[in-house]
C-alpha cells in the first residue's frame, strides 16, 4: 500500500466518523431550537385564545368545545402548561387517505370568567422535520464534495511532492558502487527529503570509497604477494643453473618450486575471481564464440589427443556483445573441465547457438552433491594440479553476465549449459 493511499484511507474513515457524530449533534440541537420556537408560538396562540375568551371575542375552533369533567377540573392547578409531541390522524385532502402526522401540542388550564378552561393548541412538526433533513442532507453533500476535492488535491500535490523521492529512488536502484561519479539526486524543498538525500549521498560516497579501497587493497595485496613469489621462483631457477646439485637436493628444490607455483596460481585465480565478482571487466565488445572455441580447442589439442577424446562441435557464427577476457576464460575453463574429468577414448560435444553454449563430456559418475559443484575449493579429484576453482570461476562469470548455468548428468554424460536468454528475463531478480 502506498503512503498516500494509507493516509487517504485514514482521512476517509475519520471524516465518516466525524460526519456521523456531527450529523447526530446537528439533528439534536436543531430539534431543541425548533421546539423552543414552536412552543413560544403555541404559548402566544394560547394567550390569544385566552384573551378572546376573556373579552368574548369570537373564536375559530378546530374541535367542538366540550365540558371539562370533574377529574380534569381539579387535577391541574391554574396556569399549568404541558408540552408534548403527539401523533394525530389526519385526512390528507384529495387522496382520501388517513395518515398519522406528528404534532407539537400545548395544553393549558386557566380560569377565565370564573370558569375553568382547558386550551389545547397544536402545530404540525412535519415542516420542521423536513427542514432538519434538508440541512442534514445538504451538509452531507457538502462533506462528500469536500472529501472528493481533498482527495484530488491530495493525489495531485503528492504526485508533485513525491516526484523527487521516486526519481531518487530510481537512481538509487541503478546505483552501482563501481560508478566513479557520486550519485546525482534531485533537489527538494521538503525538509525530510533533504535529510534523506543527504544521508543517501553520504552512504553512497562511503560505499564508493570503501569499494575502491577494497579494490586497491586486493590489488596491492596481490602485488605484495606476487613480488616475493617472483623472487622465490627466480632464486630457485638460478640455483638450478649451478652444476653441483645432487639428485636429492634437486628433488627438494623441485618441491619448493612447485609449491611456490601453486601458491602463485592460487593467488592469481583468487584475484581473478574477486575481479569478476567486483565487475571489473565491464568493457564490452563483439565476441565471436566460434573463434574463441576453435582457438581454445587448438590450444588444448595435446590434452585432447592424449586421452584420445573425440570432439564434435556445432558452432553458430552468432556474435554476442560481452567482455572478451571473461568469455575467453569461460570457454577455456569449460573446455579444460571437460577434458580433465573425461575418460580415455571419451567424447566432448560443444554446441553454441544464439541462446545457449553447451559443453557435454563423458566421465566418471559424480561423487558428492551436485549442489556443491560450483562452490569454491570443492573438488572431485585429489589431483594436486586442481585448485577446485574452475567451476567457481565459470559460475561467477555467468552470474555477472546474468547468464544461467546448469549442470546435468545422465548416463555418465555430464552437461554444463550456459543460457544467454535469461539476460532479459532475469534482470529484475
Amino acid at each position, binding site marked *: 500500500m502506498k503512503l498516500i493511499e494509507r493516509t487517504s484511507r485514514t482521512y476517509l474513515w475519520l471524516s465518516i466518523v466525524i460526519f456521523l457524530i456531527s450529523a447526530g449533534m446537528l439533528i439534536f440541537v436543531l430539534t431543541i431550537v425548533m421546539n423552543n420556537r414552536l412552543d413560544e408560538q403555541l404559548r402566544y396562540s394560547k394567550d390569544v385564545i385566552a384573551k378572546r375568551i376573556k373579552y368574548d371575542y369570537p373564536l375559530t375552533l378546530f374541535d367542538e368545545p366540550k365540558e371539562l369533567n370533574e377529574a380534569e377540573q381539579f387535577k391541574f392547578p391554574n396556569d399549568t402548561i404541558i408540552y408534548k409531541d403527539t401523533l394525530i390522524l389526519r385526512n390528507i385532502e384529495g387522496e382520501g387517505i388517513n395518515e398519522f402526522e406528528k404534532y407539537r401540542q400545548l395544553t393549558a388550564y386557566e380560569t377565565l370568567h370564573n370558569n375553568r378552561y382547558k386550551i389545547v393548541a397544536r402545530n404540525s412538526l412535519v415542516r420542521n422535520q423536513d427542514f432538519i433533513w434538508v440541512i442534514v442532507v445538504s451538509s452531507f453533500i457538502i462533506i462528500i464534495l469536500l472529501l472528493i476535492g481533498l482527495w484530488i488535491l491530495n493525489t495531485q500535490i503528492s504526485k508533485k511532492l513525491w516526484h523527487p523521492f521516486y526519481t531518487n529512488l530510481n537512481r538509487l536502484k541503478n546505483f552501482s558502487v563501481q560508478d566513479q561519479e557520486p550519485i546525482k539526486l534531485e533537489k527538494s524543498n521538503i525538509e525530510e527529503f533533504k535529510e534523506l538525500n543527504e544521508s543517501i549521498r553520504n552512504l553512497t560516497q562511503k560505499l564508493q570509497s570503501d569499494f575502491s579501497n577494497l579494490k586497491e587493497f586486493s590489488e596491492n595485496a596481490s602485488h605484495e604477494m*606476487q613480488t616475493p613469489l617472483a623472487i622465490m*621462483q627466480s632464486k630457485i*631457477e638460478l640455483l638450478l643453473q649451478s652444476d653441483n646439485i645432487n639428485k636429492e637436493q634437486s*628433488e627438494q628444490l623441485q618441491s619448493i618450486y612447485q609449491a611456490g607455483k601453486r601458491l*602463485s*596460481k592460487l593467488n592469481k585465480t583468487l584475484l581473478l575471481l574477486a575481479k569478476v565478482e567486483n565487475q571489473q571487466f565491464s568493457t564490452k565488445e563483439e565476441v565471436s564464440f566460434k573463434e574463441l572455441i576453435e582457438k581454445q580447442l587448438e590450444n588444448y589439442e*595435446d590434452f585432447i589427443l592424449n586421452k584420445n577424446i573425440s570432439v564434435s562441435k556445432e558452432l553458430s557464427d552468432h556474435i554476442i556483445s560481452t567482455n572478451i577476457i571473461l568469455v575467453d576464460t569461460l570457454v577455456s575453463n569449460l573446455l579444460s573441465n571437460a577434458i580433465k574429468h573425461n575418460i580415455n577414448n571419451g567424447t566432448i560435444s560443444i554446441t553454441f547457438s544464439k541462446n545457449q553454449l553447451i559443453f557435454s563430456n563423458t566421465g566418471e559418475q559424480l561423487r558428492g552433491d551436485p549442489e556443491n559443484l560450483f562452490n569454491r575449493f570443492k573438488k572431485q579429484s585429489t589431483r594436486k594440479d586442481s585448485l577446485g576453482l574452475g567451476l567457481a570461476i565459470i559460475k561467477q562469470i555467468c552470474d555477472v553476465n546474468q547468464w544461467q548455468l546448469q549442470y546435468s548428468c545422465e548416463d555418465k554424460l555430464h552437461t554444463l549449459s550456459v543460457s544467454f536468454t535469461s539476460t532479459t528475463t532475469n534482470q529484475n531478480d
Partner: protein
Amino acid sequence: MKILIVEDEVELLDSMASYLKNEDFICEKATSFFDAEDKIVSFKYDIIILDITLPDGSGIDLLKLVKEQNSKTGVLIVSAKNSLDDKLKGLDLGADDYITKPFHLAELNSRVNSLIRRRNFDGDEFIEFNEIRVDPSSKEVTVHGKPIELTKKEYNLLLYFITNKNKVLTKESIAEHLWGDDIEMADSYDFIYTHMGNLRKKINKLGGNNYLQTMYGLGYKFTDTLK
C-alpha cells in the same frame, strides 16, 4: 646489447641481471624512478625492462621518457598487476611487450631475445646453434642446411631451448611457454616429453646432435657441453 633493468625489489633485480648477464648482454640496474630517469637520460640502451610500480614514481612515466629520448629502444614492461588497463596503457604508449610477475627467468630471456630480433631487422636474422639454424621471420629450421618440418609446438620448443641454451629449464616454465599460464594440467609434462622426443628424432635424422639433457625429472637443458 645494453639492457637496463628497472626494478625496486633488489633481490629480483639481481636474479634477472645474473640470468641475463650470461648471455651476450650488458646489464645495468636501477632500483628507483629517480635512478632510472638519470640513466635513461644519460645513456643509450637497446632494451629496457621496466617495472610499472616503483616507490617514487610510475613506470608509465619512465616509458614516456624513453620514447621521447630514443624511440628505437625496446621496452618490456614487468608488472605484478595483471590488469588489462595497465597492459593496454603500456602497449599504447609504445611498450613492446608485457610480462606479469611472477615469471620464469627463461621466459623473460626468451621475450627479451624476441624483442631484440624484432628491433634489429637489419642485423643477424638467424638464430644459430652449431648445425641448427632457425629463421624466425619464416619460421624455418635447417639442420646442416637441410630443412626439417616441425609442428608449431616443436618449433616454439626448439626456439625456447636455443634462446635459453646451457640453462636448466623447468617443466613448468616450458609448459607455460607452450600453452600459456592458464593451463593447470599435470598431463602437460608428458606432452613436453613427447614433443621433445619427436624434436630429437627429427634433428637426429638429418645428422644433428642430441643436445637435450634431462635434469633429474626437474627439467631439461639444451647444451653442447657434456656433463
